């Protein structure tokens, strides 16, 4: 297969868009949060400034090679998810990235790439809070994935495919064709699981800022932290894009993309602003109750 520079170019451009949109989105969300609390809030460019500031820190410390690799794994996880996920489904197919190399299963499993690497990097930091944060994060993630898996299976039964692009294509032709309407139960289950995946309250026990100083990244600073922040920006958009593709008809242009990912992301922020934090066992138990039952119903409907 000859090397396709055009594809690479579009992909990098897409990455740039996604990164900046991710940063902007996080600024907007924080702004919204502030307004709910009757504050003015940060300036809209604050995420960029923070990012530059972190890259501009002059001194660093390192705990070892895995401490280096942790953020690299994490960022690779984020970028990899981006690469294997079609962003926009257009006639030209320029924005589908490298999704021809793998299907939905690849996406689901590639999420762990970053998590695992991050966990190891934080582990090498040797900080007890990192380990506590990771153990909580992993525990919670197992529970989150159950409704998500059920929803994905339900979708696969519904559309008889595991290809994201095909799922999006099947939803075209009007808003009523979206999975949101054709398979509402699976959508609800998956959206509940999204709450955990994005780790806002009430499922933010992993970072738990007031309890275990921000959990896994306790020891990360300067450039390392900058990489993690960059990744977070990309990852949040890509996560939202995954849900957009699966449940909300995908996007055919960047405007639609932005609106939809914003709304999806906003859902978790909205819930997070309203609810307090769960303990880990409550969180796990909760995911294994309501969303699990919803997921099972979603499958039964289509069996």
């Amino acid at each position: 297969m000859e090397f396709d520079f055009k594809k690479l170019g579009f992909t990098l451009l897409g990455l740039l868009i996604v990164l900046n949109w991710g940063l902007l989105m996080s600024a907007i969300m924080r702004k919204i949060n502030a307004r709910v609390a009757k504050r003015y809030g940060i300036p809209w460019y604050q995420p960029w400034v923070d990012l530059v500031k972190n890259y501009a820190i002059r001194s660093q410390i390192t705990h070892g090679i895995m401490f280096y690799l942790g953020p690299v794994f994490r960022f690779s996880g984020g970028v990899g998810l981006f690469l294997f996920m079609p962003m926009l489904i257009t006639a030209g197919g320029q924005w589908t990235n490298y999704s021809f190399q793998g299907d939905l299963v690849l996406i689901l499993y590639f999420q762990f790439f970053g998590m695992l690497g991050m966990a190891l990097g934080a582990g090498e930091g040797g900080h007890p809070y990192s380990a506590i944060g990771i153990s909580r994060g992993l525990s919670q993630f197992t529970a989150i994935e159950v409704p998500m898996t059920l929803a994905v299976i339900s979708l696969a039964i519904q559309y008889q495919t595991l290809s994201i692009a095909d799922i999006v294509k099947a939803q075209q032709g009007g808003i009523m064709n979206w999975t949101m309407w054709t398979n509402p139960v699976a959508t609800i289950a998956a959206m509940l699981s999204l709450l955990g995946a994005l780790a806002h309250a009430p499922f933010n026990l992993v970072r738990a800022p007031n309890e275990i100083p921000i959990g896994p990244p306790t020891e990360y600073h300067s450039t390392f932290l900058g990489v993690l922040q960059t990744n977070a920006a990309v990852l949040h958009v890509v996560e939202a894009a995954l849900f957009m593709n699966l449940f909300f008809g995908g996007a055919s242009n960047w405007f639609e993309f932005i609106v939809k990912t914003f709304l999806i992301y906003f859902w978790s922020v909205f819930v997070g602003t309203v609810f307090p934090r769960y303990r880990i066992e409550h969180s796990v138990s909760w995911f294994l109750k309501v969303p699990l039952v919803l997921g099972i119903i979603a499958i039964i409907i289509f069996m």
Partner: protein
Amino acid sequence: MVSPFYLLGVGLGLGFLLGLTGKNSKKYTSAITFVAFAFFVFFSISWLIPFALKQVTETLIYTAGFLPPFSISLSVGFYEAVFSLMINSLGLLSILFLWKKINSESNALGGIILVLFMTLNMLVFARDIFNIFVWLEIAAISTSGIILLDKNKFSYSAGFKYLLASSIISSLYLIGVVLVYFTNGTLFLNDLITNASGVTMSVTAVFLMLIAIVLELKPFPANGWALDVYEGANPAIGAIMSGGVATASLFLLYKFSPLLDNKFSYLFVIAGLLTFVGSNLFGIKQDKANRLLGYSSIGQIGLLVAIIGFRPFLGDKFEFIAITILVSHFLAKAGLFWLSDVIKQDNIKNWSVLRRKPLLLVLFGIFVFSLIGLPPFPSFFGKWELIMMLSGGYKFAVVTIILVGSFIEAIYLFRWLGYAIKLDFSELPEYKFELNKIIPVVIFGALVLGAGYYAGNLICLKTLNYIPLAFIVLLYFIDSLPAYIKNTLSILALGYYSYLILPNLYETDMLRFIFAVIFLIGGIITLVAGYAYKGKRQGFYPVALLMYVGLALIIQAQTTLEFFFGWELMTAGSYFLIIRGKKSIEHGLSYILFSIGGAYAILAAFGLIYAETSDILLSSLSVATQNITLIFSLLAIGFMTKTASLGLHIWLPGAHAEAESDVSPMVSAILLKAGVFGLFILMIAMGHNPEAEQIGLILGWIGALTALVGNLAAAFQEDAKRLLAYSSISQLGYILFGLAMMTHLGWMSAMVYSINHFLYKSILFLTIGAVVLKVGTHDMYKMGGLIKNMPLAFIAVLIGIIALSGVPPLSGFAGKWLFYNAIIDKHWYFQGAIVFFSGIVAFLYLFKLIYSVFLGQLKDNLRKVKDISVWFAIPIYILIIGIMIISAKPELYLKPLGTMISGFYPNGELSWTGGLANAPYGYWNGSGVMITIGIMFSLLFLWLWSLSRKAQKVKQFNIVYAAEAPQRPETTHISYNIYAGYYKSIGWIVAPIFEKFWSTMTEWIHSVSDFGRRIYNGNGQYYMTHILIYMLAFYFILMH
């Protein structure tokens, strides 16, 4: 051909002579008796050889020229000669064994023994039923005479009980004889047999005679007297009783068996089976060695009685079955009794003193295996044929009973063996190593091996391959050489074996080829790690090779017999491997019991197939049409004990965790695949049946739940190897799940999992094992921060866990991806969801493993630990290369696998366009993903490196610790019970219900045993009552 009357003359003459001689001639007694026995043996051989060469036929000899019934008649035939030889050789060796005792004690002892054995010979030869009464009485008298001369107070009371019982029994016999004479007018057995159909015999008369002989054979539960003798008397006398008297009595029964009609056959069957199961059951609770041997002896004789009862069903295999089982029992029991006398330890826990002389331990092992019926001993073949002949129809219940009895016997024998192998013996007294006592044991040990070879050849038409076994024996003889020599030899042997079979298999059978590669090449790779061990490592290589030979035989098996032979060899070898671990005694026992139970299930299933198809070819599995559900379930259960599926998994964690560092990968990554291979064979052969679909559904659920429970349990472990062991359970659950789907994709995923699990579990177990060797503990929370000391190990574990977790781009993802497609294809959504949930749970324990061991805080005492041994690193990195290759180019193995499985399930296979695999639902480009991620990862790494290459390297306490500094690494390393919250929410799933179930079961069996055996209250009168009640009960049964 010496006339038997010379026997009589020599026996009686010398016996009386020795009784009359004075005390001065005491020291010659042994020699004289020995010569006499040598004559006896010569006599037997002189008869046996012509019979064996078929030069003569059965000969009848009469006394005084009268014809029966007025004369004493003796008959010598082939079987008589065989039995006589057995008895006489036992006598000869007994004299050798008792040489000093005979010389030192009353000079009558030698004479009485001589008389006893002469009597036993006569019992074998005699054809006159009254004559038999006389010999029975003389046997009883001389036996109790021997017991009397043993001179301890226990033997007095035991001998008295014996006399009481035998006088009742012989009275019964006498009444029977008289009644027979009264009704038939003859005492000549041959006449009775010929007239049996014509003349109506009194049922009562024959019953009395037969029940008396049965009672002579100590049937359960009217056998307390015999047990007391076994326990109270000198073990050498026990050997004579168990080997000689019982053998002769059994032949008596055999002689009478033509008299039997169906009713009597049932009587024998009932009595025999009752004895076999009951005696073994009561033996479970026993911890006195001699009495336990008595229980076992009685049980075995019971089985033989039942076999005689089954004579009509066994056809021309009857003699083979009876003689193989009898010979095993005869040699093994005599050998065990002798061993008991050599070491002079009554409690079975003290038999660990055997280890002072490894030869004795090996002999002990041989005898125990021979008793249980493991290959390559004769009773294995005997039991095999027995089950084959009995299966089918209602007799399946009988098969079940026999297998249950054998299983119960295995319980206590293996417990005993475990004690002998493992318990500490340093505080136990020394014992003398007398040559005259060892030689008989060694001879019998060698004989039982030879008999096994002979029996195997007889039954299998020389298809069994004994060369590897011979090599193992050779390895045992050079066991005193340093370990590396033996290691090299073993590797060469395995390599040569692989060279012999692999190329051929590659051409003919892909499935077998893959498993052969896992078994043999995997074996070679794991054996390389053995170079890390210093010293001799005695006993390791023979048993390791035994396991590999068993595995190879399974692969090559064409018949069910070969398969089962290999299966049992593999079980035995792996048992010894597992029990080598430091704290493995109970885990080894539970492993072998589950394995034996599973093996018996397989045996029963093979029997059912044979009953239907009369064919022992493996291919006949697919021909079977009846009892599919039963056969399929039995085989599946049998194989699932090896794959440690849910409910049958409790042996695995302990067994794998406590095993040695390089044994764990052998038993985990390789051995478990034997079960997978068995399941493959099963499903290939029988998967087309409609019933298989139903069972497959159940198996699928079991597989899914196994995966879940295994992974969850692994997450809550603190012991690194135990964690990996639970992980193995769950991985095998995946494989079972994939297999149970019985679709193309399902099997693909099962196959992919099998290969991958072999690779990464070998890596993980080898690495963790090597780390454990270095740090001296299994507990993960006692390690930590080892990445700085052990970078090689860390990289290996990192790659291992990424592959195991199924995260792209490493090879584990192939299995996950195939799974998703397979479950949607198969519509097993909920099972699939459970499997995927458990797949994610895997991250919990994987993180815990790598974090607790390699990351976090380095402990004080581990600061100077070096990296893992290079001999461990070599196999580990070879396997890592393997993982990397199949990760980068998955089509390399997926395509051949697809081709192979298309042979069974052509529908739904993957279609390939270049490196892109297309399944019915999804698509995946393994090498593309690998390249993409590789490039991206390298770029990002370079970027971060360029940004922060000047970072200051700090040490482990340079962490932000709320403005304090950590005080000790132990309190800073968070590892113990880190998933406490998780346990709170879903820990109930891993509640040890199965452990509780099995332990309750065990307790229950032990309680029954303990309660039941109280009928043997030690009172001679009660024993007489038992005999009477037993007789009356059977009479009642017979009359109805």
